[in-house]
């Protein structure tokens, strides 16, 4: 109860116009199946998803294009450039990935000379717009960091 009140307060503070998303049956089902290890009680990570995707600090995910290192000999230079770029994951897939990877890997990390550092910040606003996924609370953390 208290948590929902606090969440709604933070929602109202956002500068951007926001349409509140009510608790729907589908979103409630999606949030449920996070599985934990029986022995260690640690949340599961899918090892194959961990190799292929990268989570940004604001809750977005990036991946490489399929076939970016195949048939390079017959691709022209612009296609080679196009295939080499990393792209954002769809919103529906993001919601699944949030549940496939443990929060240990979703922590915000700060390295020196990090190539992903400019992409970790989504906008030049002080607060990040809240995401639709109820699993992720990354935008709350980013809002606190930028204050």
């Amino acid at each position: 109860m208290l948590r929902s009140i606090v969440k709604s307060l933070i929602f109202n503070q956002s500068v951007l116009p926001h349409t509140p998303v009510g608790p729907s049956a589908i979103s409630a089902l999606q949030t449920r199946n996070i599985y934990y290890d029986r022995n260690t009680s640690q949340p599961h990570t899918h090892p194959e998803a961990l190799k292929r995707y990268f989570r940004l600090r604001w809750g977005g995910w990036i991946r490489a294009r399929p076939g970016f290192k195949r048939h390079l000999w017959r691709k022209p230079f612009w296609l080679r450039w196009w295939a080499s770029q990393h792209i954002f994951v769809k919103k529906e897939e993001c919601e699944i990935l949030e549940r496939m990877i443990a929060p240990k890997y979703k922590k915000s990390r700060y390295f020196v000379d990090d190539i992903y550092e400019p992409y970790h910040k989504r906008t030049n606003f002080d607060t990040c717009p809240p995401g639709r996924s109820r699993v992720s609370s990354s935008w709350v953390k980013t809002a606190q960091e930028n204050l």
Partner: protein
Amino acid sequence: MGFSVAEKALHILRYMPRVTAKNSLTSPIHPRRRIYPRGQYARGGRLHYPNKHYTQYQLFPPAGFVNDPKSSSLWFMKVPVTNYYKDVLHRRQYPHFSLYSIQLSIDLGNLDPNEPIDLTSICRCSNFRLNPSDNHNGVQLTDPGLDLFSSQINIEVQYASEQVIAAIERNGGVITTAYYDIGSVIALTDPKKFFAKGEPIPKRLLPPPDCIDYYINPKNRGYLADPEEIAKERLKLAQKYGYTLPDLTKDPKFKMLSLRKDPRQVFFGLEPGWVVNLKDKEILKPVDVAWKEFYNN
């Protein structure tokens, strides 16, 4: 020399292994019998009953599961492997602290510009959190609040970009980049907690090979660089960014601005090997020559 055969045999026997329950053989009188499984484990157990499908357990399928046996590969397996998280858990982290937040905490009174600022005083600020167990090895200064920064400070951080160095030296300040190993970072983050342990102050280690070039370079104001070359680089940076470098020798704060830590020193005014007793308010120093040699070298 001159031992009899019996003495030699006794000498060998003295060092032979003793007879214990571990190294003794099974008894021929009571040989170990095979234990047959009983109950549900007998005659192959539940091998004849196949495993349940996930739908028979009342569970939701795991995330990313595709209930389509015809699909050759899953949607997340079609993406090529790029190991983003390969060494993420093991790399040294340096949390951000902007020039804006330094100016803010000076204005609020959390940081004192009349004293040299190091990792301990930055950790006291409420808007900075450093957790050594998360592999946080220090602080890196970032550029937000570059233009509004206006205070003369003597600061020591672990990493700073070129424009940040220029912003501090434009106001007559001094910046050094220094390396601390994780043991001394733990001591620096919470000194009161560290002194309560009763351990001596650790010897600060030299930087590892992947970052030693950064701390030798006078362009980065490294703590292992030659001070004469740093003075030249200060002048070069002032010409590059177009500001007049103030003369520090005529400054009233010159004594504070020229304060630096020794490469083996962790705290200001304290040497490695000393034990600080907070309860009786006294400092215990090592007397033994071996300990003195260990901490001074």
